């Protein structure tokens, strides 16, 4: 669909250089970090709130769907223009408007890259805490839409715990402010409900984030265990000892083998699990917690324990965890990365069942996950060149999600529902649960023009291949967290 009057109106709003409407160009706006694809009718690159407001008023008047895009790193298809229409790319709204080190806040535009906030405030010994795996590229606007997490959210919380307020343009072009500083503004916490709205409620055009002070010391531990059970027990006991680590990550046996095959880290090949633990704070507290952690691990017969608080050595301790993603490529050429959450204590049991599901389907599965908060990321390895293989991976993924719900967990811990999981929503929510969510959406977006086709089941199952995050493994060193 090429709507000439629409395009020329858009050009008059943002300038013709910033409207993309040629099919050859639009094709690169069909994807994000997931595998779902759809080509928008036109892409606009606004630079101001006023421009976004005009674009939305125009779309509202003409009943045209609008989808927003940050860096397009999302893993659930959140920024895919499934219904065509106008895609608004926020890649030009990258200004950090204000840094307030006294009040520990920064006001930024939505296109600002997550890590760039930390870089900009580093000189004040501050940082922005949520650290999604894509933090080098993903934008704060996208983080707000997906309520992004990261390995260090165990202690410090996810995006919603670090965003104080935002300026939002609504479906009809009206500009409102949600939340603000300080917290506990009178009124409903629309800020909190907007975060994680996956772009269906409005477009955040300014975001006020909370900054955190860098801890005096950060110490990383790597503990190698003979079996998964003793590693899981260690996790339980550490938390039982009243220690909340900044991060608590686990690598299972198959992942260890893959890492050793690809890029030896000195893990024993017959090790059952590697635990990575990070603690922070004043030297005295860190020392005390270190002793407690060490003795817990030793009592459970840990094979080896290494630790450091020097940045470079800590990086080396993390290397196995970070390189796991790439290393798993030795198992098969493709993978399906699943994101689900279970109560932490159910992990050993759920992991066994996941192994069973996958072995029944003859699919290797490795687990590298956030043990502290029960956020699982099973990586199902398969070879899409073999007929039926992708279908089996999808089947396993669905079974794993059902298992998570059965264990008292949820469908997604950090990737969002988007297109990928919308049809699974009834596993977790009753029709009544879903209709109050829809009612809430109505308040923001009565015409449902914003990011249609997301979150809610509509019976349109995406094509098999497109519904899962499939990718090829690489053989090089990777720096990706999963």
């Amino acid at each position, binding site marked *: 669909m090429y709507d000439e009057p629409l395009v020329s109106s858009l050009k008059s709003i943002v300038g013709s250089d910033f409207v993309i409407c040629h099919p*050859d160009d639009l094709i690169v706006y069909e994807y994000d970090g997931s595998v779902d694809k759809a080509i928008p009718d036109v892409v606009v690159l606004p630079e101001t709130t006023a421009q976004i407001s005009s674009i939305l008023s125009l779309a509202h008047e003409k009943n045209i769907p609008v989808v927003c895009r940050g860096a397009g790193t999302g893993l659930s298809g959140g920024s895919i223009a499934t219904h065509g229409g106008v895609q608004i790319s926020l890649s030009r709204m990258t200004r950090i408007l204000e840094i307030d080190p006294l009040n520990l806040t920064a006001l930024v535009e939505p296109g600002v890259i997550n890590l760039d906030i930390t870089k900009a405030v580093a000189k004040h010994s501050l940082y922005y805490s949520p650290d999604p795996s894509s933090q080098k590229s993903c934008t704060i606007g996208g983080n707000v839409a997906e309520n992004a997490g990261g390995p260090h959210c165990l202690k410090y919380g996810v995006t919603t715990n670090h965003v104080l307020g935002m300026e939002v343009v609504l479906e009809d072009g009206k500009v409102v402010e949600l939340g603000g500083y300080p917290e506990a503004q009178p009124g409903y916490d629309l800020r909190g409900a907007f975060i994680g709205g996956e772009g269906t409620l409005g477009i955040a055009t300014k975001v006020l984030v909370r900054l955190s002070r860098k801890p005096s010391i950060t110490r990383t531990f790597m503990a190698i265990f003979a079996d998964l059970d003793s590693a899981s027990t260690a996790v339980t006991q550490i938390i039982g000892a009243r220690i909340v680590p900044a991060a608590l990550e686990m690598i299972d046996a198959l992942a260890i083998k893959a890492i050793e095959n690809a890029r030896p880290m000195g893990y024993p090949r017959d090790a059952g699990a590697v635990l990575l633990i990070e603690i922070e704070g004043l030297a005295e507290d860190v020392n005390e917690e270190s002793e407690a952690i060490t003795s817990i691990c030793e009592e459970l017969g840990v094979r080896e324990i290494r630790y450091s608080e020097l940045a470079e050595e800590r990086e080396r301790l993390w290397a196995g965890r970070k390189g796991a993603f790439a290393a798993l490529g030795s198992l098969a050429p493709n993978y399906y990365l699943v994101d689900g959450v279970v109560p932490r204590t159910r992990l050993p049991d759920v992991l066994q069942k996941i192994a069973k599901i996958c072995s029944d389907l003859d699919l290797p599965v490795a687990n590298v996950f956030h043990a502290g908060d029960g956020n699982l990321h099973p990586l199902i390895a398969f070879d899409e060149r073999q007929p039926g293989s992708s279908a089996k991976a999808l089947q396993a993924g669905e079974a794993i999600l059902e298992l998570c719900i059965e264990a008292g967990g949820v469908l997604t811990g950090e990737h969002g529902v988007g297109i990928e999981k919308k049809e699974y929503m009834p596993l977790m929510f009753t029709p009544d649960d879903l209709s109050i969510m829809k009612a809430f959406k109505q308040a923001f977006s009565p015409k449902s023009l914003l990011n249609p086709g997301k979150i809610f089941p509509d019976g349109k199952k995406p094509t098999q291949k497109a519904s899962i995050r499939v990718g*090829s493994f690489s053989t090089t060193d990777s720096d990706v967290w999963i």
Partner: protein
Amino acid sequence: MTISKVSNTLLLEPGMEDMYKCVHCGLCLSACPTYLTTGREMESPRGRIALMKAVKESRIEPSSRVISHWESCLQCRGCETACPSGVPFGFLMEQTKAELIYPQKTSLKQRFLHFSVFKLLFPALPLLYVLGTLVKFYQKSGLQRILRSRIVTKVAPSSLVVLENQLPAIKGNFFSASTKIYPTKEKKQGTVGLLSGCVMPLFQGPIMEATVRVLNRNGFDVVSPPGQGCCGALNVHAGERERASKMAINNIEVFLKANVDKILTVSAGCGSTMKEYQNLLDKSSSISSEDVSTFVSMTQDITEFLVSIPLSVPKTALSMKVTYQDSCHLAHAQKITKAPREILQSIPGIELVELKDSLICCGAAGTYQIVQKDLSTKLLSKKMATIIETKADAVVTANPGCIIQIENGIKQNDLNSPVYHIVELLDLAYSTESKI
């Protein structure tokens, strides 16, 4: 849509299936200078690969619009550093240019530029030298001053004026390959061969001379064997692979005969091309694959070599605050970022201030500053803003193209900070110690 002939070629080219390693995760975006400047997905590594896929799958034609997105690529390979999936972007882009862009050069100006640069000048060094001499005469004789007078700039076509303004100043003497041996006065550690290359010896003679002195000071005899030529980098980047492979074979033959321990280059662009000669030369080429891999394993960047020997620390202090701009083909193509910083920090008195976004290209990128004037200028002004922020006395980098570009930026901003190649700074430190 019909499957065009060119896309078929692309389809068949070995190694091109690596484009499917890209899972469009987007981690490359923040490492891409052109994406950061334009905010357009088409000008990003992920977008450029998506266009390759779309052409390969015959979803779109390789139209001039599509080609323009590839042409705007600096080939700085910053995206390779960021890529978790190991997509060989540099190779894909070179191959795409070879298959799709090069055969389609249509405008007369582009054809002429292509012809003169890639077919005439670089493969045939003597011609380049003649041109260099002319330029030098033009700059030294006062002709430049006359021509830069307002009358002339008014009548000359504007593009020529721009080009003329960008012409780097030719400093000192030319440095040319010869049978000459530059002997060390210290206890001899070995002999190294130095690539004289094409542009370096012409425009940056003093850097070559400094390199020789630094190597001598560290106990190495230096030779720059005759018969060697340009490394072929510019040809490769422009997709002119056939000619580049001939140049590669010549260099391999010359250096392997020279009886040296290592082959060194002071130009990051040359180094990365030489280290990737294997990609250029397939089994059908007239040289044995053993020779190619021997050559590749012997090739090192000067910084990489110096930190490995290990470097002899200068005895006097050089009181100076400097900042370091990573050269793309050193940092991204050769993955060398620590060595230059180690060298700088080993010079007593040098204070190294990290440059914000030092891993982002300055916009030089070979002929980019000429053919993509607009973007190149934008990138340079961004770069200059960060350089000014550091308040450094001098800028250090490791590649001639970057030096020329940043010197232009310094000039435009009415600054007078010097821009050094890292060996020049080291040479400066050594030279003051000999005065004690």
